[in-house]
């Protein structure tokens, strides 16, 4: 098996991320899926959600919106109209999204909906943690 997967997150404005990591989880239109090395060539559109990158430095979360992901020969390319880290958000924005996600979670009926809502909630909470971490860093 290949050592890992090369991930590239590209937004129209910049190359957000490019490195080789263990695994990446991508919010495909038909559900989240995880890509590791030697994944079959795949192409899928994205729904708004989180790309989770599991690399050396632990897990990192990127919020992506609108676009598609392509896996081919050990490289995963995520082309998203928006690709942001916790740093790019205002705190109030994240708080608003967390509330929204909590509402969606409590309103969810099917197991699938619950899963999706839970995932979004996790994502936003993670971004919040990252953002706070940077806040503290900036204060010193």
């Amino acid at each position, binding site marked *: 098996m290949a050592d890992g997967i090369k991930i590239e997150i590209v937004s*129209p404005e910049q190359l957000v991320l490019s490195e080789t990591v263990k695994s990446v989880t991508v919010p495909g239109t*038909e559900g989240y899926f995880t890509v590791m090395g030697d994944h079959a060539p795949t192409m*899928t*559109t994205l729904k708004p959600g989180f790309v989770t990158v599991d690399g050396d430095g632990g897990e990192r979360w990127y919020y992506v919106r609108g676009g598609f992901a392509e896996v081919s020969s050990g490289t995963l390319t995520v082309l998203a109209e928006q690709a942001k880290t916790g740093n790019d958000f205002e705190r109030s924005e994240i708080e608003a999204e967390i509330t929204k996600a909590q509402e969606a979670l409590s309103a969810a009926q099917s197991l699938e909906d619950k899963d999706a809502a839970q995932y979004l909630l996790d994502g936003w909470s993670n971004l919040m943690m990252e953002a706070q971490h940077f806040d503290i860093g900036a204060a010193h």
Partner: protein
Amino acid sequence: MPSLKELKNRISSVKSTQKITRAMQMVAAAKLRRAEEAAAAGRPYAERMNEVLTGLGAAYQGRADAPKLLGGTGSDDTHLVVVATADRGLCGGFNSSIAKLARDHIRDLKKTGKTVKILCVGKKGYDILRRLYKADIVEMISLRDVKTLRYSNAQEIGEKVLAMFEAGEFDVATLFYSKFKSVISQVPTAQQLIPAQFDADDADGDTLEYDYEPDEEAILRDLLPRNVSVQIYSALLENGAGEMGAKMTAMDNATRNAGDMIDKLTLSYNRQRQAQITKELIEIISGAEAL
């Protein structure tokens, strides 16, 4: 022959003009660097998008059930011409060369009896085209207040174009902008937006068998509208870099011309001063001799 005082005034006015053009040149140089970086940062996205669409689109080319954005509406009676220029002048022939290309295109279309609609992005192109085709201009979008061009700016324009297309207001859309080749060379370019066209030479890249999720057609339908905005965005980025490059060159020339003019004026100023001194000396000497 202008008097000494007049010459002095002219020299100082040309000097202050030179100061301004030099400052503008330096501002343009700084902005050019940023614009170039932005254009370079935007390139990977546009390239990947084009690659994927070329692969997907090739299968649909010429098929009757192809999405309208790819296959067209079946006629080409009404053309939308999107002219992207700068909002400010003082950049040499940058704006007028884009407008000229668009004008030729419009004239050819009109000759063959097509209806033309014009969408101007940027004030300068609008100013030029207004004189000839005022009735055909549907809208002018100015990005004057936009400090840094974001993708959302292009998206707005893209959505406007798509809305017009959905409403059946045109059949073919062509985008006019300037490709940034280097600081001294920008090439006015016409690019067909709708129906989408792809570089054929990119088509034979990877022949990998992909798993498509949901399926090829759905992906294509999702991506084609996005592609319009992406193309507009990269055109605007190229324009931004080109405008600054052209401005830099134009202002460099202006600064140099002002320098030449100052040299010339200073020369004639000195000559005249010398002539006056000689004249005065002659007057004094001849006056002394007369005594």
